[in-house]
């Protein structure tokens, strides 16, 4: 039984920003972080003097590998005029900035700081696909990498275990891809702002232009089943089951709860925090769930006094389609082995009872790994404050949203619950 945890004092979120995500030849990490920082400052309704920020926590997985530059804390702190104040880098693979967010919350809750900047950045697109796969595989468990497992490979293997245990198949994963791609065109920051139907039309047009035979597909699933349109990467994970290679940055400003109204009449409050660690495939009890996610969820639900039914929408770490399927079960939104039926019924669509990844998710929004955790919370911030435009969750009294971030092969998992009061 986990201990029920609480913060030493309340922490509120009063500003947030993120860069556009994508592959940018002409922008680097500093440009992207500046973009996120400027939006964050503009988002603080009553204004904020950046000179009042006490410290910074920055998530970055491996710009060391991707662009051969390490030590991003002070670089970014200098960029936004914060040096000589303290800047600390956090690393938890693809969950690096969720850890930065947590450290920021703890620093304020302890009473040591009153205002903290938390953020994340990653610049991946200057490397080839094979190099990125190698760089990301540095975050697998060594026994996995040694026998050739890549990240798509690890999740492909989990998919075969899930299929075998619950009788699901690739067609169920396609429902997730189609859903994420239907949300993405509504998100102006998304890397792939198009639906699968849009993609089918684009491919047909391209073939016509080149004078090639025009491919025909009966529907989206026929397209996703066509290996020429959707080739395997690590069977059963195909191209459209996998998130892209991305560049991007995100940031937020956290303050002590009692000062929040000085900055905005509409702050969000951090009411649930959870983090767990995993052991790698060989040491899991079962290959159809992540122990670390379940631990993180239990911690966050315990702290908030909420149950999965209270969460009105959630971002989850869909680095691969099967990952989303597993997370929505681990977080308790659906029973183990029943997620695929709920998804098939449309339960996780924007207009469904439990919208998941309204941003388009990592699959379509993009996954600059170190920036992802805070970009997920940015989506929760945008939705809870009613500013999501066309992709606004159509629920009355939207009050509770959450984000789940995962690093490695489930080595680091976090779950964060935010509340609008």
């Amino acid at each position, binding site marked *: 039984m986990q201990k029920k945890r609480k913060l030493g004092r309340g922490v509120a979120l009063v500003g947030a920003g993120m860069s556009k995500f994508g592959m940018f030849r002409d922008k680097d990490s500093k440009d992207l972080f500046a973009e996120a920082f400027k939006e964050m400052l503009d988002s603080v309704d009553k204004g904020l003097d950046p000179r009042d920020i006490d410290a910074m926590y920055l998530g970055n997985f491996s710009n060391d590998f991707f662009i051969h530059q390490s030590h991003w804390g002070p670089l970014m702190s200098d960029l936004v005029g914060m040096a000589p104040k303290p800047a600390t880098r956090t690393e938890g693979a693809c969950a690096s900035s969720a850890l930065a967010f947590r450290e920021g919350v703890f620093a304020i809750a302890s009473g040591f700081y009153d205002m903290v900047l938390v953020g994340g950045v990653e610049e991946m697109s200057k490397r080839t696909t094979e190099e990125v796969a*190698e760089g990301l595989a540095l975050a697998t468990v060594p026994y996995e990498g*040694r*026998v050739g497992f890549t990240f798509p490979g*690890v999740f*492909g293997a989990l998919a075969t275990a899930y299929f075998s245990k619950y009788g699901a198949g690739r067609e169920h994963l396609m429902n997730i891809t189609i859903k994420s791609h239907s949300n993405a065109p509504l998100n102006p920051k998304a890397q792939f702002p198009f639906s699968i139907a849009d993609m089918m039309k684009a491919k047909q047009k391209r073939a016509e232009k080149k004078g090639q035979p025009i491919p025909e597909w009966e529907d989206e699933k026929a397209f996703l089943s066509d290996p020429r349109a959707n080739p395997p*990467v690590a069977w*059963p994970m195909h191209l459209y089951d996998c998130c892209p290679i991305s560049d991007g940055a995100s940031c937020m400003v956290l303050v002590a709860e009692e000062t929040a109204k000085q900055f905005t009449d509409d702050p969000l409050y951090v009411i649930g925090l959870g983090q767990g660690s995993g052991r790698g495939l060989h040491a899991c009890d079962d290959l159809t769930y992540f122990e670390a996610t379940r631990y993180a969820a239990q911690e966050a639900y315990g702290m908030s006094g909420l149950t999965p039914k209270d969460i009105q929408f959630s971002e989850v770490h869909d680095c691969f389609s099967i990952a989303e399927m597993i997370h929505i079960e681990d977080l308790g939104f659906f029973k183990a082995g029943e997620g695929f039926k709920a998804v098939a019924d449309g339960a996780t669509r924007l207009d469904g009872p439990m919208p998941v990844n309204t941003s388009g998710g990592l699959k379509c929004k993009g996954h600059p790994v170190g920036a992802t955790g805070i970009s997920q919370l940015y989506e929760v911030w945008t939705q809870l404050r009613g500013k999501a435009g066309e992709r606004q969750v159509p629920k009355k009294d939207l009050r509770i949203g959450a984000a789940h971030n995962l690093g490695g092969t489930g080595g680091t998992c976090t779950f964060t619950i935010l509340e609008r009061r």
Partner: protein
Amino acid sequence: MEQRPFSDISYEQFLNEEKLMGSRCKACNALFVPPRPICIHCYSSDMEWVELKGEGKLGAFTCISVGPPFMIAEGFNRKNPYCSGVVDLEEGARVDARIEGVDTLKPETIQVGMPLKVKYLHRDEEGIPKTYLAFEPK
């Protein structure tokens, strides 16, 4: 009695000798493959080496078309994918391994639960002998 430390380095040395070895906690009998120096159930450090039979069932697998540079160097690519998997050993532990002797271009023919036996893939990496753990259908 085998005296090597319960480490990844020892595990790899044993693979070079075509032995699949794990550690067993003498206090609570828990089995660990690869070996652990400390029992994660009872925290005892009193371990002994155990040789595994090298037989088991396929727990999960993937056929990888886009591999890391060292697999590409072995000749694997989109037209020639390789299989990696998780094997549930007869003794109860589980290992990550290459899966050989399966049709990676027809992954639907590979079945979770299929019985497997161990195989050792010996490689020479810049003069250093290196062995990869693999399994193949029985």
